[in-house]
Each structure stands twice: as C-alpha cells, then as structure tokens.
C-alpha cells in the first residue's frame, strides 16, 4: 500500500489530535499528553500504508496486529480507528461515558479494531509475542506492532518479553517506544531512568532504530526498515514530546492525565489548525475521507 504525501499525513495527525482532545475534553477525563505524543506513530501505522488491515473485517486472520500497550493513550487510537471506519467517528465523543464502547483504556472484544485489553502497563509486548508465534505456526505473514510508553518500560514484564522475542528471533514483531521522557509523576530520567535504552534493547538481541517521532516520514521509514529486518525483532525508539502540538501541553506533564477545560480546548484547537476552528472539520474531512477512498483494499 503506497503512502500518501507527507503533508497529507501531517494533516491527518493534526486531525487525530483534534479528535482526541475534543473527546477528552468532553469526557472531562483522560490522558492528553501521551495521546498527543503518539499521533505521528499512529498516523504512520494506520494511514501510511504500513498496517495491512480491513476495517470491515476486523478479524481477518492475515491482518497485521496493533497493540497499544500504553493503554491510557487510547484516544489517539480511537481517532485513527474511527477515521479508518471501524466505527462512526463521532462515537469518539462518548469517550468514558457509561454504556459507551469508547472505554477509558482499550478493551478487546468491545471496540472494533482493539486487539488487546491494556491499561495495566507492561503487558502488551508479551501479547504481541503470542500473536507473532501464532502467525508463525499458521504460516501467516502478518506483522505485530506494539506501542510502549517509556515509563512503561520500567516494568519487568517488558524485559521478559524483550528477552523472549529476541531469543525467538521474532522479526515479525516491532515495538515502538513513545520516548516522550515523562511518566505520571514526572520525568523518567528523575524517577527511574531507562538510559542507555539503545544498549538495553540491543543487549536483549533486538535491532534498534531511533527516530524523531514527530517526523512522520522518518517514522514511516523506520517502520519499513523494520519490515525488511530478518532474524530479530525491531525496537523503534521514537523521540517525542509529551503533549505535542499544543503549546501549553508540551513539556508540561500536568497534562499527563488531566483534561483541558473548555477554554483550553479552544486554544488547543486553534493552535492545531492555524487559528481556524472551522478549518479543522474541513481539513479533516478532506484529508482523511480522501485517503480512505484512495487506499487500496486489502483482500481478506
């Protein structure tokens, strides 16, 4: 699947941010910081021609798997899934309300397109190994992508899984670490440093790549390089900014888990759209709808 032009991907990333922030603001609850930092990663995967999947057939056995191990960032994923047609995009606005499929953290079996129930940090990579092994057993060629938080990598289970995936030479598995340098209570470096991260993953037998996680082209290239790698899984350390795209959220960990007020939301939306709130909708409809029509359908 060919990738659309970079400008279009950048515009989609902005659209996803807008969806995520509006939903979080409507819920008055959620995690803006880690949703925004992952926008380009999710965009590259879902709109850059990386993930082979079929929104009308979420259980297609040959689909690529995507697991958001840092489950609290789910608003940005709902935005992508909604725009991709897994469910009506407006449903995102019911985020975190009772009886909604838009749960506070991803719930497998409830929300179309969600592959794993996460929210208890540390588990996604192991689940990804399970998919990768199943694919190997069945002779299927799908790939499995897992997005981890940097803080999340303090969990021992991540290192169990890293060891196992390295030894099992699971080259269909790709981990992307949203390296935004903050966790819940503050800076990762202050709380429990993960440096030198490259050496850690390398010593667990992974291919390690580093990219600017907001350069969607660079992310795409890394994801494609991972596809080409044989005999070992790839870890992409995506250097990101928590709260990216909204001036008062960037480098401000207050917005790790706090919703913007109505007023803050307006400022944020204006920033994301060069000051024109109306432009958001227009841009979104053009950018994403256009893409949806033009992308070739995978054959399930």
């Amino acid at each position, binding site marked *: 699947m060919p990738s659309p032009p970079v400008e279009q991907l950048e515009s989609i990333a902005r659209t996803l941010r807008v969806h995520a922030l509006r939903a979080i603001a409507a819920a008055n609850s959620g995690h803006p910081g880690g949703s925004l930092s992952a926008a380009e990663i999710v965009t590259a995967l879902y709109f850059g021609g990386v993930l082979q999947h079929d929104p009308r057939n979420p259980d297609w056995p040959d689909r690529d798997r995507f697991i958001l191990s840092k489950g609290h960032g789910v608003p940005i994923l709902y935005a992508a899934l909604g725009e991709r047609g897994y469910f009506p995009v407006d449903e995102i606005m019911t985020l975190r309300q*009772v*009886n*909604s499929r838009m749960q506070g*953290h991803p719930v497998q079996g409830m929300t179309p397109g969600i592959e794993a129930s996460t*929210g208890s940090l540390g588990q996604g990579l192991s689940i990804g190994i399970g998919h990768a092994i199943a694919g190997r057993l069945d002779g299927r060629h799908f790939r499995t992508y897992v997005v981890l938080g940097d803080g999340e990598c303090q969990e021992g289970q991540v290192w169990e899984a890293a060891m196992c995936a390295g030894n099992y030479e699971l080259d269909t598995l790709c981990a992307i670490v949203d390296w935004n340098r903050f966790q819940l209570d503050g800076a990762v470096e202050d709380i*429990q440093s993960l440096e030198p991260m490259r050496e850690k993953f390398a010593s667990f037998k992974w291919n390690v790549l580093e990219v600017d996680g907001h350069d969607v082209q660079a992310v795409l290239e890394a994801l494609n390089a991972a596809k080409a790698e044989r005999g070992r899984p790839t870890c992409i350390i995506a250097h990101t900014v928590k709260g990216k795209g909204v001036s008062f959220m960037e480098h401000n960990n207050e917005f790790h888990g706090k919703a913007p007020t109505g007023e803050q939301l307006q400022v944020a939306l204006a920033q994301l759209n060069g000051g024109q709130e109306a432009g958001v909708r227009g841009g979104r409809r053009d950018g994403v709808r256009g893409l949806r029509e033009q992308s070739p359908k995978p054959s399930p």
Partner: protein
Amino acid sequence: MLSTRYTPRIGRATREAYGDALLELGRKNRDVVAIDADLAKSTFSWTFGKHFPERFFNIGIQEANMVGIASGLASSGKIPFISSFAAFALCKGFDQLRMGAAYPHLNVKVAGSHGGISIGEDGVSQQSVEDVALACALPGFIVCIPADEVSMTAAVHAAAAHRGPVYLRLGRPKAAIVHDAPLDFVFGRAITVRDGDALTIVANGLLVAQALMAAERLADRGISVRVLDMHTVKPIDVDALTRASRETGAFVVAEEHLHHGGLGSVVAATLAQTVPAPIAFVNLGDRYAESGKPDDLLRKYGMTADAIVTAAESVVRQR
C-alpha cells in the same frame, strides 16, 4: 453511634486522609518510609514525599520491585508504607507480598488506592474489585477498608502501631462522613453505626454511607435495621456478627468488590460456624464493570442504597 437522622456530609477522599495521616506518622517516627510506583500524586503518598524527600522513594512503574524493596526495608527495621493503585499493588505484587511480607510476617503496610468501581472513568484496568480477595489470601495480613476520612486516619495510625503486615484500601472519590472524631478504632472490631433488631447491614468503604441511607428508608417502612461498619475484613469481628445473627436473624452484606472472596464470603463463612442466617449480597457479582461517572457505575452495577433496600426486603421476607 449516630442517634439522629443521618444526613450525608461529604468529607475528603480516604486517599487524601491517608496522605495526611502518613505525613503525621512521618513526623513522629523517622523509621517510617514510603514507596510509590509512579502514582504518588494519585495515592497522596506525595503528601509525605514532599515533606520527607529522603525517606520517600518513587521507584517508577515497578510494583513487584516495590514490594520486594519494602520487604528488605522492613527486615532492616524500617516501617515501609507502600502505595499504588490497589489493582496494581496486589495483582502485580502478589507473589512478592506472599513471600516477602505475609510469610515472614514483616512490618510492611500496603495502601491500595482507587479501590472499587467508584474510581469511574478510567475503567476496568484501574478498578480494583479483587483486592480484598487477594489480601485476605495473605495469611497474617490485616485487611481494612475504612469508610471515611475519620476512620482512615485512625486506621493509618493503627497500622503503624501494629507489628505486622497490613492492607488498607483507599478510595478515589470524596467520601461521606459516617463517624465522629475522635473515633474508638480497633482493627477487627466492627463499629455499630446504627442499631436495630430486624436486620443487619454489614458494609465497608463507601457502602457504609449507602447502608445508613438504606436503613433510614427501611425504618420508614417499619424495618428496624442495624448497620455495622465492618472496616476490618480480616480478622473479622466474630462476636459482632454472632450477636447480630442472634438479635436480628438476617443480613445484607454490601461492598464494592466481586462477590467472590470479599467481605460477603467472610461473613458467610463466619456465620456458618456460629449462628447460620440468610444473607443477601450487594456487590459486583462475577464480572467487571466499565468506564463511566462513579454514580452512573454504582447505579448500573447495583451498589447503592437502593440496591441495599431491595436486598434487605427480600432477605427479611426469607427469614
């Protein structure tokens, strides 16, 4: 015991009271240390942490390691209070609590915050609905779920005074005040918050206030109800339960927990050995909840004064 009509007065969240009490402990005893796993601002251990940075360890997202460290600290004479969300402290640290706290009966205090489904919007992954079952499966642990800020404050001090492992469940939302300070608080001794002779409601945590409201509505219908704040699930107050069984003959047990392994199981197993009686259970059953506003969830999943009233009416009929 509240003699006048109960009008819920909203107090602080029990997690907030926990933080303040911990700070006070820290002032009195320099062997008190606190550890958190990247939830210090949510569990309120940060109240202690910002005053005693040298005795506070926010070790990041490593619950198992946190418990192990506490085990070592306690073995070297410290009094570690460790905190996280209840779901993570117990579900990710269980084996470490078993080998490193329960079995050697060490002086480790565990504060599990965000107990129950009343934490609301974050949803199932963060809602602890099995912590009481797990904590009670740690021999020698005291397991305590205070109802309000008054009893939480007392419980934290009692935990520090007790030599041995203690589990405290903290709640996220502001909690109605059900006790007057100063409170005569002892682990393992229920507090009778209302007397009556036709039925006993046994509750803890947020459901004590709901039980009081239910009791008033039942009184209006001529059913005289006793309400026990059973803050301590282990060791259970056998005397209070036995007396209640003799004197009232029927029970409702209300808690924010799975049906299995919580207060309800303990009450049932206790009464079966003393004075068997019919019990109606108000709890989550054998399922998980979902995201939503706390009140929406408690209503949808049936852990309210309404649910208690319905349960009470059915069990009184059975008696």
